[in-house]
């Protein structure tokens, strides 16, 4: 009974506080693509994602009803940081769909042009002025948005003097973005300004740390149940050393948490929905590292400071390679150690039965690609006259006089190809009940190798995984001078996924190997299922920028990098890493083996 009354009471208050949807709300998701494009078009940085922002406590005055209902304590404001353009997950502050869409576009545009330095008000005013002066369409919608925003804001007459003063200043700054306005800090924060970016430059109010932490690979591999794209503010906390503790953990108890209690606990994986909802209610999630993949069911994006690296894991001498630090814009020399291991013990194998039919089909398709001289006779036009056809045409009156030319095509190809396959743990993820990503990658390697030996091009096969910068492992399946045979088929059959994806280092080492080739065309094909990532600071934008740098160096050496990915959601960053023309996404991983060989046919046409 109490439950029913409580629920009824909550619904009544929520309705009174005006939290019910009014039909004019707009979700971020369907607008993501458009807003990302607008952001880049107006000069925003490339390679940033468009993401939902974390709600932050604004501390502004709320009505009694709002406070009783426990609503409107947080606000979602737009902002941009090193990883993403962050926008509210839902825009519903204004009455119409048009106004809320316009708000999204305005926030996006402002994020693209707002100056980095200056006070909160000045930065927003300067950005606003820039947009008003240069973009007529945005200017028109700005004045409509200002009207709506002013209507939404509290009337200064109803506020205590200090707050009224601040409110008047904000209204003045909105109406006249070119006028000088200073905001005297009062005891209470002013009502958030939706047309402006969040006060803190990093995107979230009052939270300095907002670097993204991607879930580690083991977590990603296991999480197919839930994809929760919402960002949450996170803080670091140490894992308690002693197991157990006084507090028994039940997921529903998270409702009552607002502070982290330093107790080790087990999460019951079947209650992920409750967890996600509960996580929304927390201001800050405390995260600590332990060795067990308990977080599988709950995949979240956290605004979280990157963890520091924990030192070397391998003392063996290895190849030292640099790494690009985009934050400092320097190339760190001899920063990564790469070790190349071979598989001497792999037993010789024939091509697996399951691939035989596919291989035969590809063989026929690729046979045409083998370098040779082709003469096409009896053409309607061509480089030379086909004398046979001409004589026959002249002597045999029934024959067609037109097709008396011949085309000569020399398919001279001088090509070396290095295939670099991602063998990180994320490839252990299941695609279907029987198939994992790694199985697809293995079959791709097999069929690709068969195809390449058909076309008689020089090729090498490598796989890679990493465990921080001192342990980047490359597995040599076949080097350029090795003939393709049953032993190599055996090695391919034995590959196993491990650890992480430090792609920059693997690309550099592969480039070095490929650069030694004398061929006219040198193709570096990268086969991966996700973005660069390692379990130190090498994640998010850092890994992306390092890989991008490694690839541009490869291009400067005259190599042609190309990426094939099975990551379905990778479109955000792939053009930034590889360039618009240098990657392809295979939507259905099971098609990868065949697509790869056909792609090769197209690439080397």
């Amino acid at each position: 009974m109490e439950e029913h009354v409580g629920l009824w009471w909550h619904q009544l208050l929520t309705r009174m506080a005006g939290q019910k949807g009014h039909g004019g709300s707009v979700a971020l998701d369907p607008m993501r693509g458009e807003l990302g494009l607008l952001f880049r078009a107006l000069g925003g940085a490339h390679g940033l994602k468009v993401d939902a922002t974390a709600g932050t406590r604004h501390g502004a005055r709320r009505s009694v009803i709002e406070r009783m209902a426990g609503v409107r304590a947080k606000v979602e404001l737009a902002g941009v940081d090193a990883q993403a353009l962050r926008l509210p997950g839902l825009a519903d502050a204004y009455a119409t769909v048009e106004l809320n869409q316009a708000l999204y576009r305005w926030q996006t545009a402002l994020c693209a042009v707002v100056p980095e330095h200056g006070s909160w008000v000045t930065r927003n005013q300067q950005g606003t002025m820039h947009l008003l002066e240069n973009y007529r369409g945005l200017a028109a919608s700005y004045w409509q948005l200002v009207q709506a925003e002013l209507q939404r804001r509290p009337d200064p007459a109803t506020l205590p003097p200090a707050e009224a003063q601040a409110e008047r200043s904000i209204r003045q700054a909105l109406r006249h973005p070119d006028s000088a306005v200073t905001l005297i800090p009062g005891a209470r924060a002013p009502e958030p300004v939706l047309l402006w970016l969040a006060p803190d430059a990093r995107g979230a109010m009052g939270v300095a740390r907002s670097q993204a932490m991607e879930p580690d690979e083991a977590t990603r591999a296991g999480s197919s149940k839930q994809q929760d794209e919402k960002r949450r503010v996170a803080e670091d906390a140490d894992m308690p050393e002693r197991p157990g503790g006084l507090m028994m953990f039940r997921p529903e108890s998270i409702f009552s948490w607002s502070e982290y209690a330093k107790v080790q606990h087990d999460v019951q994986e079947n209650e992920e929905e409750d967890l996600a909802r509960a996580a929304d209610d927390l201001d800050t999630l405390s995260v600590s590292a332990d060795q067990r993949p308990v977080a599988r069911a709950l995949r979240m994006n956290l605004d979280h400071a990157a963890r520091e690296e924990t030192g070397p894991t391998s003392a063996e001498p290895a190849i030292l390679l640099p790494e690009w630090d985009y934050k400092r814009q320097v190339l760190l020399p001899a920063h990564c150690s790469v070790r190349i291991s071979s598989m001497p013990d792999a037993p010789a194998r024939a091509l697996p039965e399951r691939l035989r039919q596919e291989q035969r089909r590809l063989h026929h398709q690729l046979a045409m690609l083998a370098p040779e001289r082709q003469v096409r006779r009896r053409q309607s036009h061509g480089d030379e006259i086909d004398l046979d056809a001409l004589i026959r045409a002249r002597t045999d009156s029934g024959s067609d006089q037109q097709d008396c030319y011949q085309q000569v095509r020399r398919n001279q190809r001088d090509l070396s190809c290095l295939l670099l396959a991602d063998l990180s743990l994320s490839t252990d993820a299941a695609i279907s009940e029987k198939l994992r990503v790694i199985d697809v990658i293995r079959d791709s390697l097999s069929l690709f190798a068969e195809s390449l030996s058909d076309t008689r091009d020089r090729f090498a096969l490598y796989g890679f995984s990493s465990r921080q910068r001192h342990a980047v492992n490359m597995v040599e399946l076949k080097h350029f001078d090795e003939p393709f045979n049953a032993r190599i088929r055996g090695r391919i059959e034995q590959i196993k996924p491990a650890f992480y994806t430090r792609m920059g280092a693997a690309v550099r080492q592969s480039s070095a190997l490929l650069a030694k080739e004398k061929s006219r065309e040198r193709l570096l094909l990268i086969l991966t299922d996700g973005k660069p990532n390692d379990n130190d600071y090498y994640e998010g934008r850092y890994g992306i920028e390092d890989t991008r740098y490694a690839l541009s160096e490869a291009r400067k050496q005259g190599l042609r990098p190309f990426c094939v990915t099975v990551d379905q959601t990778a479109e955000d960053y792939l053009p930034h890493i590889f360039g618009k023309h240098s990657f392809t996404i295979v939507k259905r991983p099971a098609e990868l083996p065949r697509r790869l060989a056909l792609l090769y046919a197209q690439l080397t046409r």
Partner: protein
Amino acid sequence: MTLLSLHKPHASDIPAYVAVDQEVEVFQMAWRSHLPVLLKGPTGCGKTRFVEHMAARLKRPLFTVSCHDDLSAADLVGRHLIGADGTYWVDGPLTQAVRQGGICYLDEIVEARKDTTVVLHSLSDDRRILPIDRLGLVLEAPPEFMLVVSYNPGYQHLMKALKPSTRQRFVSLAFDFPDAALEQQIVVGETGIASALAKQLVTLARALRQTADHDLEEAPGTRLLVDVARLIVQGCNPQLACRVGMIECVTDDPEMVRALMQVVQAILGD
């Protein structure tokens, strides 16, 4: 088929071209020194117009060949055709340019097959000869002859880049989109559109260029901008003109068209 346009110059009709740097002087010096020239830069930034302008200025006939996948050496040099009385030879544009002491302009040279461009080697070094095997003939290029090729480094087709050895035979002039003020001036000059509107179009083009390589395959060039301005001068609604003259030209993806039209809307307004 080969696209061939023969531009016969008269003193009066020198195509308008606004010089950005010293490219006019360099081109003249290269011509006098019998050096071939490579023009590189994005599509629609004025490379072709520049060559037309220079040919007219130097009073040389211009032979323009748009290169493509199927272009063969015979398409450049010439071939035997079958007539009523037997076969006869027809010169290709390159041979014509050599014989007439003209300028042969190979547009987008990277699009041509590698075995096609081999015939250019002996013409682009100091030998300046064109061997025609099928006629058993070696043509020596007169001093007035000039070879000009263009190449778009941004247009990265995986296997299509110019070989370093080919590139090093040419004097290279790098082109880029003109700065905003100059581009506005060019659009106004070519079409007579109102200056304020031209400014907005230039802002739009520059915004789209920011997204090139990430969202778009290719940035809209000045040429597209001029086309849009022409439509507007004809009375076309500016938004519509931008859609048909620019947006639909840079992408075929309906989703992308919609998103780009939002950018148009943001910049031009209603």
